[in-house]
């Protein structure tokens, strides 16, 4: 049984914005799943519908086999949500926020207090339990929302851009925490527009853009889709223009730096042979960083092209 199953989900907001144009998405139990996409792609809308904060326009959502339409309460019990924007009462105390949330799930007060303590300690907020939420730093507020989302022990944790605006060190410790939760068997879905985050945390990934899923696969095969690898070469002598190298696509980044796309099928020896023929001396060479980034840009560009053609026709 899938943790989350989304079929042909559509959403048109009252102002006419078509945020989701019929997306399908399946997340299996135990997965650590990334929903990746640029701003405005429809990530928060998707999360909003799954967590009952946004009304869908059409389609079906099932959580661990429970339909959000027909078995809403059962479905809701299985999900914990950490939204993108802070959504707690700023004047309420940290402890009360978490205990009250447990109460809303029907957890009796004694157990609610135990659960609140457990997660406030795990997230390093126990010392701050009597502070008003507005006194917390941005990173602590984010962690407060994670503690609140876990208080009823959901099997599926959904985080909407959890590390936006969180500094790098805290980001790492949050990642470790999430990895720990996943290892205990919890299914985790996070949205992000940081590719590095998706790459280092998630084994499966979907890329969403303009309300359409443009890619839905596991991370490895996604990276394998990159048929070409790009290398950056630092040259000994500057060049006037990019040289013609048979079989390779070459760009001049600046006079003394070349970028070369090398197909997976080509050997690097042939590249160096071709360079030597033209008497181009290479001082150093490196792999162009973040291949996923490139892939992402390419996928999104392709999608934009298609959208453009659709509009034109």
């Amino acid at each position: 049984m899938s943790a989350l199953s989304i079929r042909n989900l559509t959403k048109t907001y009252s102002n006419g914005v078509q945020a989701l144009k019929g997306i399908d998405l399946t997340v299996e139990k135990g997965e650590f799943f990334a929903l990746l996409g640029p701003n405005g792609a429809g990530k928060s809308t998707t999360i909003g519908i799954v967590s009952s904060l946004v009304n869908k326009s059409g389609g079906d959502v099932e959580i661990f086999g429970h339909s959000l339409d027909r078995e809403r309460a059962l479905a809701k019990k299985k999900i914990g949500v950490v939204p993108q924007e802070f959504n707690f009462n700023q004047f309420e105390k940290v402890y009360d926020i978490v205990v009250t949330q447990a109460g809303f799930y029907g957890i009796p007060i004694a157990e609610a207090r135990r659960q609140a303590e457990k997660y406030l300690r795990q997230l390093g907020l126990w010392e701050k339990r009597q502070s008003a939420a507005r006194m917390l730093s941005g990173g602590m507020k984010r962690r407060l929302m994670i503690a609140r989302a876990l208080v009823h022990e959901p099997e599926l944790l959904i985080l909407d851009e959890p590390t936006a605006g969180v500094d790098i060190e805290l980001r790492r410790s949050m990642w470790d925490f999430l990895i720990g939760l996943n290892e205990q068997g919890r299914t985790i879905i996070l949205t992000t527009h940081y590719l590095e985050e998706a790459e280092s945390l998630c084994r499966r990934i979907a890329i969403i853009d303009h309300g359409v899923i443009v890619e839905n696969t596991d991370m490895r095969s996604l990276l394998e889709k990159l048929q070409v690898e790009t290398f950056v070469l630092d040259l000994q002598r500057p060049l006037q223009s990019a040289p013609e190298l048979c079989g390779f696509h070459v760009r001049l980044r600046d006079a003394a730096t070349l970028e070369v796309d090398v197909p997976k099928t080509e050997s690097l020896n042939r590249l160096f042979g071709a360079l030597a023929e033209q008497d181009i001396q290479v001082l150093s060479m490196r792999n162009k960083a973040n291949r996923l980034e490139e892939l992402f840009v390419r996928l999104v560009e392709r999608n934009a092209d298609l959208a453009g053609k659709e509009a034109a026709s």
Partner: protein
Amino acid sequence: MSFTEQWVAFLTLVTKEIRRFVRIWPQTLLPPAITMSLYFVIFGNLVGSRIGDMGGFDYMQYIVPGLIMMSVIQNSYGNVVSSFFSTKFQHSIEEMMVSPMPAHVILTGYMVGGIARGLMVGGIVTVLSLFFTHLTLQHAWITLSVVVMTAALFSLGGFINAVFARNFDDISIIPNFVLTPLTYLGGVFYSLELLPDFWRAVTLANPIVYMVNAFRYGILGVSDVNVYTSLGTIALFVLGFYILALWLLRRGTGIRA
């Protein structure tokens, strides 16, 4: 959600609502105590002695039930409209929306919170009034049911107001421009017998007249209108408002995009 779980969620919300207005008592409980004491001093003691009898009672006694009702109405409405609106405004409403709490539990929780505030203020005002006059309790059950139903009705009214409100101005329009005039003209300060026929007929279209009179009947035993008709009508309105509020909440009006 099982019944026990719903009950836990309900108690959680009601406790939260009560703690809210108790914590901010200088904004919620103190102002009506001061305002109503001023009414008692001015209308009861200073002016009231010159007015003489009203409906067979001295003026102070006559207006006390109306003033208690006035504070119940204002406070139950005010409690729910501001609490629910600020929950919406801060988005903490989402804490309930993501939970399996059914809409009727959320609505009833807010309603009971509003009733609690209305009754608490009503109780404070009643105790204060005893420093100025003595009251009887002619019909305890009628008194109790009319005050509880009125508090429920205005709590639900406040809820519906908050559902549609988009900013803080929207939550003060109804209290200032509808509730206050209707209450002042709702037979709190005078018996309808004093009015010319035309104005009496107009006044009878004001629902607050029935609440004030039914409550006054419970305490003093006099009323300008039929008490049982009033009680029945209030009950129908409570039911109607509840169904409307529940429908709005289920649809997510003003809450879910």
